[in-house]
């Protein structure tokens, strides 16, 4: 499969601040790549370089074979961009906005108008199309902005945080629209702070932090890097922790980990709910009282926090040997795990 987007060793500095620190990225044609990272990780800078808005200090990048610097004008013909702060002209109507963008893509007068009508219909803006965008809701503006990015039916689309600032309903609506769009074979680079969004929309996810890609893969691959399923028990009596470990020993796929202060035993398992039932029986038979129990699968939240949240805090906080037990403990995870993931 050929790559629609390729970036190699991108570096961008703003004064002393390093926004991109040697970022590499490949996005295969017709796939959705999610760039996931906290604020200031370099997501927007990456998009701005790939859409020719910024010139990188070093490194090279191409979109559908066009170099972002030397071939910028031709590159702009094959991309659509929908930015972070819905860049529609609020004094123009929805129709006028789309018509103007069509004219600037040089679609011609007739085709621009046709296309504007088509897109208003597709994005459920027919009624609002004759009103200035000033009166639109946040969700409507986003849809109009996305429609503007699609005017020339570009083969490659960049969406920079397409749902930031939308209410949950608006976000769900936007997801449907985007999912629908990529079914048509458009290559999409999407940036987001929401794991759920990347999980739902992206074929592949690149986690970026401090201007580099620190982990990459499908959502499942990333989850696997954090670890498999585990059962978490919270006991009524901390004194029974030892007994609990003994009772559970044969059921785990690895050694149980314990946390006396939280009266907690965490057991890595294969086999999910069936093991959970067996484990509860064993504890019951051994007379160990359990206050709370749950089967946990790693989420992208775990991945995200273990990769970025931890990395951000490790300098200030002495990392201890607390193993990965999910969200609550992720700020104290072992640095070796992070290194291991980063080295892949």
């Amino acid at each position, binding site marked *: 499969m050929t790559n629609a987007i390729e970036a190699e060793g991108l570096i961008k500095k703003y004064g002393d601040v390093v926004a991109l620190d040697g970022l590499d990225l490949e996005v295969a044609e017709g796939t959705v790549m999610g760039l996931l990272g906290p604020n200031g990780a370099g997501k927007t800078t990456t998009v701005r370089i790939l859409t*020719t808005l910024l010139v990188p200090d070093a490194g090279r990048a191409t979109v559908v074979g066009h170099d972002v610097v030397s071939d910028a004008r031709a590159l702009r013909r094959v991309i659509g961009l929908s*930015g972070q702060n819905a*860049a*529609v*002209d*609020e004094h123009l109507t929805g129709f006028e906005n789309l018509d*103007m963008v069509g004219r*600037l893509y040089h679609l011609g007068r007739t085709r621009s108008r046709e296309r504007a009508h088509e897109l208003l219909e597709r994005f459920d803006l027919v009624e609002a199309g004759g009103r200035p965008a000033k009166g639109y809701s946040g969700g409507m503006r986003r849809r109009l902005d996305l429609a*503007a990015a699609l005017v020339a039916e570009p083969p490659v689309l960049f969406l920079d945080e397409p749902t930031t600032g939308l209410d949950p309903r608006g976000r769900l609506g936007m997801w449907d629209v985007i999912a629908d769009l990529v079914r048509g074979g458009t290559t999409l680079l999407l940036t987001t702070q929401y794991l759920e969004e990347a999980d739902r929309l992206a074929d592949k996810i690149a986690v970026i932090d401090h201007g580099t890609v620190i982990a990459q893969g499908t959502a499942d691959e990333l989850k696997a890097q954090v670890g498999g399923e585990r059962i978490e028990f919270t006991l009524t009596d901390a004194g029974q922790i030892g007994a609990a470990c003994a009772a559970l020993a044969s059921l785990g796929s690895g050694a149980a980990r314990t946390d006396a202060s939280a009266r907690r035993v965490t057991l890595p398992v294969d086999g999910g709910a069936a093991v959970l039932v067996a484990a509860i029986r064993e504890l019951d038979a051994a007379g160990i009282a359990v206050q709370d129990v749950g089967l946990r699968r790693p989420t992208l939240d775990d991945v995200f926090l273990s990769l970025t949240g931890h990395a951000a805090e490790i300098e200030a906080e002495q990392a201890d040997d607390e193993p990965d037990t999910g969200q609550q403990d992720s700020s104290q995870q072992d640095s070796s795990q992070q290194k291991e993931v980063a080295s892949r």
Partner: protein
Amino acid sequence: MSAMTEAAGDAFVITKRNLIKIKRVPDLLVFTTLSPIMFVLLFAYVFGSAINVPGVGYKEFLIAGIFVQTVVFGSTFTGYSLAEDLQKGIIDRFRSLPMAPSAVLYGRTLSDVVNNVISLAVMALTGLLVGWRIHTSFAGAVLGFVLILLFAYAISWVMALVGLLVRTPEIVNNAAFIVIFPLTFIANTFVPTNNFPEPLKTFANWNPVSAVTQAAREQFGNTSPLLPVPDVWALQHAVAYSLIWVILLLVVFIPLSIRQYGKAASR
């Protein structure tokens, strides 16, 4: 389509977009029409009651000065609008489109000429109401107005560069005020320069605002036989000196602004 026609077409699309805004935002129209009326009335009656220009009524003397001052201030709107588009991310959208990079700036400056034409028309009507008259020919009047508009157009390009360099539209207004206020007042716009102390007098006599004002007065026939033109080349050859400034500003600021547009990044 050749590159030139394409660029012209793009500039036309942007001009149209900017003009729609004039139609949709009534506040802007109020600014472009009411404030010139206010200026004409204020200066004509407040200053006019105290200032005596020999050989010609103060209102006759004043109008060309008010015209020039108002359109020069009006051209700050170019910078303001560009800074606003930059802030709102609209420039980002334009820059991601395969359009001519100069089109946004040509479109902007051209639509601001329309703004200035509206201002001039309103001021001229108000002027006629308070007693100002053109004593020359129709051609002379047209030449006078065209010269004023050309000068404002050149200043628009200076403001375009300022608008692309600063971070918020408000800064454009504040920065422009600091420069434009002295520029339009240390000149022959509101009072003759004869009694200015040196070195203000030298500055005023070589100030392009004075030359444009002097040229307009000559074209409108608003000069006074009792008020000799100061003996400096700039004012003796007001039309030529004005045009030199227009060309100079355009030659310097069009390429600078287009270059800055290519680099402009929001936030």
